[in-house]
């Protein structure tokens, strides 16, 4: 019994993470239509019901920037240097395409479920 629970829990966790991964990217791109630095972005997402670990969000920002979807700049705010991110031109295009895709999947899922 214990064995099947462990496997089931593990499987659920893997599937849940898989389901969230793409959604998080879309949420981050959406939120970065306005400029944010890491911490305020995380807060904004949490306030809207999408909690995300620091160890997931901060590296994700780096990856999206490397892919050219975000731009960033170091700037001082409240006597502390912070790295501010926002959507790049490529990022805006990508976001629009992903949003269309999301809406299409969502509509299909509603019909299926």
């Amino acid at each position: 019994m214990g064995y099947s629970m462990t496997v089931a829990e593990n499987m659920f966790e893997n599937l849940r993470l898989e389901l969230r991964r793409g959604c998080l990217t879309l949420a981050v791109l959406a939120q970065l239509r306005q400029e944010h630095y890491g911490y305020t972005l995380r807060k904004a997402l949490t306030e809207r019901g999408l909690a995300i670990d620091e160890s997931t969000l901060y590296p994700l920002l780096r990856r999206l920037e490397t892919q050219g979807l975000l731009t960033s700049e170091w700037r001082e705010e409240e006597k502390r240097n912070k790295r501010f991110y926002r959507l790049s031109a490529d990022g805006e295009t990508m976001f629009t395409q992903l949003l269309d895709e999301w809406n299409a999947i969502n509509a299909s899922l509603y019909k299926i479920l």
Partner: protein
Amino acid sequence: MELLDRYLLAVRKHLPLARQADIVAELRANLEAQLEEQESELGRPLTEGEAIDWLKRLGSPTEMAAKYQPLRYLIGPTIFPTYWMILRLAVLWASVAWAVATVVRMITEGHGPEWLAQALWSYPGVLAATVAWVTGAFAAFEYVAVHYPNIIPGNLTHSSAWSPTSLPRLEKDDRPGKRRTFATAVAEFVAEFALIIWLLLIPRYPVVLMGPGAIYLEHSAIRLTHISVEFFWVIVVFNVVQLAWHGYNLLSGNWAVKGVLQKLAAKAMGVVPVLLLLTAPGHVFLEVNPDEAARMPADLDLAMLNHYLFTSVIVLSFIVTIQLVLEIWKVGMGGYRRGMAPGR
């Protein structure tokens, strides 16, 4: 907060060198903002227990750093740091074992430099086999951990059991090296001085080096060649320079940590006497003592003895040169890391 500094230091050690400073600076800004807000909500600083809980929620430093690395499909981010540490240890020990085995075979089987050159070709194969075995074992471990979590306990693949209190302490002095007390530094200086006196007594009173054996050596059928005398004086000069340098450190109040330049100079000077032995004319270190030639044992092969000695000198030269290169590399990397540190 010291605990946060220690956390960031530990994360930094697992990040790619070129991006360390930038990532840690950003992480610091974000975490400090989060900390400030928590403390402002509480109206007081976090207690140590609260700080520990907060850092534990962030995940272990290795997990945090691993998220910044490119995806590794064969071995997951949680066990990758352990894999990397074991791999380096395995490569080191395999290299040492190979080197010892090669030297022992060379001496006991009487092989020459040509054999050694051929033996060197087998070294990449030893390395490849070591890497393959370690990687294979960790890849299998990762596979079982992911697909059969009931076989491998979760705490072996997930570092939920880590504690922020086990984070390494911050370095008070950013210069590398162990700190010494004044008493230790003075004791070392006195010991070095006594060593030089002892060395200087040897030519006139060989008994201080050989004991009663000095009398036997004087009437021995073989004796040391002139290169051994030159080697001896280079050693004396080396020790005198070290003594002068350490004396200057004591006088200038700079005894606590040996400077990087001093460490490098000591390593470099240590190479000179060994390389000097390589220049021995005809690679001869022992020769027949003309006054006692009649006592020469018939079965003593002096040429073979010199050959073995020369082989040992080659191996020794190789070791001291590698040590010097490693020291230069360590100093270079240390300087680069400090140069890239945030806030500089």
